């Protein structure tokens, strides 16, 4: 039982985060994009908990707990927004929702 280097966890977290960013950049479906945000948050959570292990202190876990709660709140509101966007525009393509421009 030798264990794994702590850097592996951190790199895994970075990989997951980057995958989330990639999804955000390359996907056009709002729901998928939103899920990619969750993926990024998960990646960050992993590094929080890894640091919690590294520092042998519970605080990192508390932060990731808060991240989870915020993610839950965000999901509730975000999905409600997606519902209304779909109702009013009839599309889930993120590039069709570009009224920020004007």
């Amino acid at each position, binding site marked *: 039982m030798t264990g794994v280097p702590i850097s*592996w966890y951190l790199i895994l977290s970075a990989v997951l985060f980057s995958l989330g960013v990639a999804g955000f950049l390359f996907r056009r479906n709002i729901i998928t994009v939103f899920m990619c945000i969750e993926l990024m948050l998960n990646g960050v959570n992993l590094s929080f908990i890894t640091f919690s292990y590294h520092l042998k202190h519970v605080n990192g876990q508390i932060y990731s707990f808060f991240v989870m709660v915020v993610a839950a709140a965000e*999901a509730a509101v975000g999905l409600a927004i997606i519902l209304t966007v779909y109702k009013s525009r009839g599309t889930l393509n993120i590039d069709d929702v570009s009224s920020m421009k004007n």
Partner: protein
Amino acid sequence: MDAILFLIFAVIAVVCGINVVVQSHPISSAISLIGVMGSLAVLYLLLGAEFLAAAQVIVYAGAIMVLFVFVIMLLNAGGETGRGRSFLAQLLGAPVLIAFLGLMAFFVQRLFPGTEMVQFGAFHGGTAQAVGRALFTQFLLPFEVISVLILIAVLGAIVLARKEFDR
């Protein structure tokens, strides 16, 4: 043993993560994301964060993702249609991402050069008691604030998703 478990679940997480991005149908992405979350829960356990592992499954897999699946089913969202119009993102995205990942990996390797090993059972600070104690003493105020945030989010979601405004 630790290494094997880590490798198994890290591979599952990465494969599912890639799947989230490449699957064309949102529901496949959602299922893959559940896979990522489940394997992350196991990794949390390995890191000694047992409460967070349970919370990860209950909150993420059991609540948030159910909501996603629910909405996908409700909208009956199909695969992607139409063409994207932000060419900039498609053009510059990959190089930027690769640069980001490379830099992150570089710094992680420099800062944590692999001397410290993660071993299951070496850290017991993540029990429900420990987390609860920290939440209700040191982090009491953020905890209360975040519960208010949740309440507001619930109200906001209800207001947004209501069919019509009652007048």
